[in-house]
């Protein structure tokens, strides 16, 4: 099949600047929405996935595998695990075993809601920074036990509905009726920990009047003699007295991600429906573009160009317009949407406009061009050539 020159398709875009503007901006709006949806889904999924580490094993109470906040295990589990399972990761004589309490507490900060908002507060020891390798103190210092100090995640302000300045180092935050001083900022990019508040384990236990931990997180070693998940699972099974069970941290967060599948589906469906509206708008615009040159399409057939070659040229033309819109939307998404914080029940996450999200956006732009062209092209080309040539 001999095709029409690409310049013909490209220059056709310039026939009506208003129509071109409508096509490009219409496509850009739809693609921006798809990118926002993609960024939401990617951000949420990646946030949960990155929070869980393949090398980490969690020990929780039996029956609490789906919610650590409900879990209660004896405080002795951490030391028992360290003593009973050789081959856990160590550094400078410290085993990567982190006993933790995780609890949602009402937090009031700055000019936020006076009743406070529920934020995941994690009671930790310094080994938490070893097992959660994605975390680091971005500003300030580790909270000292007994000094009412806390570390605040970089997205915690989003969860609290206050400005980042309200959680600056040195500011005071009220947690469950008691004031705490922000000693530092915790950075755990692209993970839900970024929206958490950390405080010393002993302080949280004292504040919540509990003696038990929620979980123990341990990192498996590497190389010969390293512990495997099965070793930790065997330990949990054998200690019937502790009523504990083991699971990998990644499987826990993957399961949590699964709980949000309906939310992600709703987001995609909404984006799809709006995209469908965009297709109808595109149909209208492209039909107007092609209907105005039915005679020219007849002339091209008269010269010997096949309908398939003309349809291909039309597709090039409309895809060029929608791809331009998609590129504009992609640039806008990278600059204005990427990293925008969104709160959800688990904390908060940043919209993630990464390569897969951008590919989905560009694909949506091209699909818009394809779907918006086929029907108008068919309608304009179905006329007999002799009829097309009479068109005004």
């Amino acid at each position: 099949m001999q095709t029409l020159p690409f310049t013909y398709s490209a220059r056709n875009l310039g026939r009506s600047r208003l129509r071109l503007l409508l096509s490009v901006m219409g496509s850009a709006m739809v693609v921006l929405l798809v990118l926002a949806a993609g960024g939401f889904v990617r951000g949420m999924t990646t946030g949960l996935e990155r929070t869980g580490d393949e090398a980490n094993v969690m020990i929780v109470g039996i029956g609490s595998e789906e919610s650590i906040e409900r879990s209660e295990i004896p405080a002795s589990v951490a030391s028992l695990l360290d003593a009973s399972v050789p081959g856990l990761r160590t550094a400078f004589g410290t085993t990567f075993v982190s006993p933790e309490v995780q609890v949602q507490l009402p937090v009031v900060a700055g000019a936020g809601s006076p009743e406070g908002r529920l934020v995941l507060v994690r009671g930790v020891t310094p080994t938490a920074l070893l097992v959660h390798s994605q975390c680091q103190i971005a500003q300030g210092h580790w909270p000292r036990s007994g000094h009412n100090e806390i570390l605040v995640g970089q997205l915690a302000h989003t969860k609290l509905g206050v400005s980042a300045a309200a959680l600056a180092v040195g500011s005071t935050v009220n947690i469950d009726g008691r004031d705490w001083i922000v000693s530092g900022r915790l950075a755990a990019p692209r993970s839900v920990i970024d929206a958490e508040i950390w405080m010393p384990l002993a302080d949280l236990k004292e504040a919540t009047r509990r003696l038990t931990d929620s979980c123990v997180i341990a990192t498996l070693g590497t190389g010969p003699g390293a512990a495997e998940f099965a070793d930790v699972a065997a330990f949990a099974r054998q200690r019937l007295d502790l009523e504990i069970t083991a699971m990998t941290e990644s499987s826990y967060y993957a399961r949590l991600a699964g709980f949000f599948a309906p939310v992600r589906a709703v987001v995609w469906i909404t984006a799809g429906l709006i995209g469908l509206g965009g297709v109808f708008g595109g149909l209208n615009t492209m039909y107007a573009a092609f209907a105005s040159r039915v005679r020219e399409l007849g002339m091209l057939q008269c010269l010997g160009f096949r309908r398939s070659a003309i349809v291909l040229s039309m597709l090039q033309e409309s895809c060029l317009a929608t791809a331009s819109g998609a590129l504009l939307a992609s640039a806008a998404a990278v600059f204005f949407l990427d990293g925008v914080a969104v709160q959800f029940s688990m904390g908060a996450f940043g919209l993630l406009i990464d390569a897969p999200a951008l590919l989905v956006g560009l694909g949506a732009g091209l699909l818009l061009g394809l779907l918006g062209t086929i029907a108008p092209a068919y309608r304009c080309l179905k006329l007999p050539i002799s009829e097309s040539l009479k068109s005004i």
Partner: protein
Amino acid sequence: MSEPLIQCRSLTRTYTRGTETITPLERLDLDVMPGEFLALMGPSGSGKTTLLNLIAGIDRPTSGTLHIGGIDVGGLSRSRLADWRSRAVGYIFQLYNLVPVLTAYENVELPLLLHRMSGADRHSRVAAALDLVGITDRADHYPRQLSGGQEQRVAIARAIVADPAILVADEPTGDLDKASAAAIMELLGRLSREAGKTLIMVSHDPACAAHAGRILHLDKGRLVEHAAATVGAAGVTT
């Protein structure tokens, strides 16, 4: 004596619009010799353009046969017919039908894109066609930058660039002033005489038709009169 290039036998074209059946061309017999310049005249609805479109391969007969250069054009599939058109026929329209977003050069080049040839060969052919119609100096102009007569010259260059045996022209001077029309007719006559093109032209204008070697009058889809032109393509009174 050579064989006719175009042979129509009982050529009929019928259209159905709702419950109404229209027959713009009915049982037409016609032979056109190679190199002949034929003018089709008649009132509106007499079947001139229908016959022209059938010969150009952009319409198909309802019944009867149409052989052009030994090929049963009515029996070709849609894609073969498109290929045949690109090789055998150059169409000249009343309203030129140039692509507004392409330059004169690019418009003339369009039909050659359907043929396998090198860029250099294509360039030389386009240049030759533009030269033949006397519009070389306007090669880089867009149609909106050309006068009607110049646009029609570009359209003629586009029709002849692939060197088809047949040129069909539907009211080629219908949208031109008198001087431009005369120049275009002179050009078409020259193409017939010097390039040996078989030229079939629809016209309402007796002065234009007079440039043809033969004039056919159609009425209600039937051939009503054969006449030799008073001023033939070769400029001979017959």
